């Protein structure tokens, strides 16, 4: 049996004596498209950072590709796209191609130049997100949605097996959110990239994902999205507090437009 790509075993995380995460266990298998849902302050970003190995949990263990996170060396297998709004220097004088090439830093290793042969990969990554026509444009000329696609291309260029996205649609024009998620779904389907996504866009995302994890310090539900309706009202209440109505129809057969 193949080990899960990411396996979180009973972890907790405390931040300055406040519990941010408690007794979380979660496994992500190859090919999953997992959405981590939860209200503000539920620990979603913290959980992602733990998956990326950026912070260590106070308790519990993480295995990445079957290896203990401490000994995991193939960081380029896990791509990461952060929230656009609070990262990146927006006036920076770089072209789209230069930014995407930057995604090869870790794969290339210290003291080495990024080989010219990677140019084809940069183009391919931009094609996968539908941005190949913008290679020589400066980042500052693009819209928020286009910039976010470029950041996904930057993550894709190192050919990751897993892509982790932290609220990738923040700052994207509402009309473009649909096509953005379609693009993610096709990466999952056609390129076999396992996706883990933290988001608020509950309504938009449910059509494309395979799995859901409902997080609020602890996991209130984790499984196929079709089983989400088995969550009782009490469980939903415990997970999301008062604003349950908004996500009530997840797992149903609604169509979204």
């Amino acid at each position, binding site marked *: 049996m193949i080990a899960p790509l990411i396996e979180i075993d009973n972890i907790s995380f405390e931040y300055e004596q406040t519990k941010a995460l408690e007794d979380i266990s979660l496994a992500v298998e190859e090919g999953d498209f997992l959405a981590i849902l939860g209200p503000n302050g539920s620990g979603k970003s913290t959980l992602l950072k733990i998956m*990326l*190995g*950026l912070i260590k949990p106070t308790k519990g263990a993480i295995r990445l590709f079957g290896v203990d996170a401490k000994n995991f060396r193939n*960081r380029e297998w896990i791509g*990461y796209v*952060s929230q656009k709004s*609070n*990262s*990146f*220097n927006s006036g*920076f*004088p*770089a*072209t789209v*191609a*230069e*930014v995407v090439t*930057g995604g*090869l*830093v*870790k794969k*290339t290793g*210290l*003291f080495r*130049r*990024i080989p010219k042969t990677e140019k084809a990969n940069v183009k391919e990554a931009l094609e996968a997100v539908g941005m190949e026509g913008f290679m*020589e444009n*400066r980042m500052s000329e693009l819209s928020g949605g286009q910039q976010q696609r470029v950041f996904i291309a*930057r993550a894709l260029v190192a050919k990751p097996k897993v892509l982790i996205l932290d609220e990738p649609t923040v700052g994207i024009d509402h009309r473009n959110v649909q096509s953005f998620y379609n693009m993610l779904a096709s990466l999952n389907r056609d390129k076999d990239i396992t996706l883990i996504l933290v988001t608020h866009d509950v309504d938009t995302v449910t059509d494309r994902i395979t799995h859901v994890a409902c997080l609020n310090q602890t996991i209130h539900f984790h499984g196929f999205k079709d089983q989400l309706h088995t969550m009782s009202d009490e469980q939903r209440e415990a997970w999301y507090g008062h604003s349950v109505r908004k996500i009530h129809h997840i797992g149903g057969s609604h169509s979204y437009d």
Partner: protein
Amino acid sequence: MIEAIFSYEFLQNAFAAGLIIGVIAPLLGVFIVVRRLSLIADALSHVTLAGIAGSLYLSQSVAAFAMLNPLFLGIAASVAGSVLIERLRSLYKHYEELAIPIILSAGIGFGAIFISLAEGFSTDLFGYLFGSVSAVSREDLGIVAGIAIIVLAFIRLFFKELFILSFDDEYAKASGLPAKWIHFLFMIVTALVIAGSMRIVGILLVSSLMTIPVAAAMRMGKSFKGTIILSVIFGEVSVLTGLITAFYFNLAPGGTIVVTSILLLLLVICYKKITVSMKKGAVA
């Protein structure tokens, strides 16, 4: 002029050092500007002043310092300043910019004390403050060349890491780059360039050679590499024009170099304005 450069050793030194600084100051300057560290360059140049003034003062009383090139103590002070700035920045996490005025005034404070203690080195000091065409010795040139080799090697080895770090430091950390170490090395290399450029441009104007050519290049450059190349071209034009005018009219080169770079910047801004409005006109 060309003949003069070849016939006088002091002019050879000044022009060779100028040509080198014209490359390394704007080259490193691109990273300083995009990382919003421009003011740190200013703080470090004032710390360099303290080191040089200290060395000049000690040279009057301690025999060992009379033999020592004041640049060395300037370099040491600048590097120490860069380390202290980093310490202060992590101490005042929410007020990182506070480190700059603290270090800057500390530099001037110590500098002022050493200068008043020594009393007698006003001509030397003028050269250190505003640059000098005649004061660059063979040894100074050697130091500048050594610094240039370190800078070029550093940028060659860490170019992609510096690029990522400047563009998006959260991503740099997420991809597991040793961001702290690279930043630390970057600060030390910056301190070296400031100390090295000071002989030609002068302490008070060093940071301008790292920022003004870059400011002009950022308006024109289509890519990051293009911006770097343009910065170096603007830097070289400023240094050469500035040195020639300084020599002919007996002016401080720091002044002529900086004024040239400001004129270049204004030209670029006007050129950009005109081309943009012409494009708009063509579309309409």
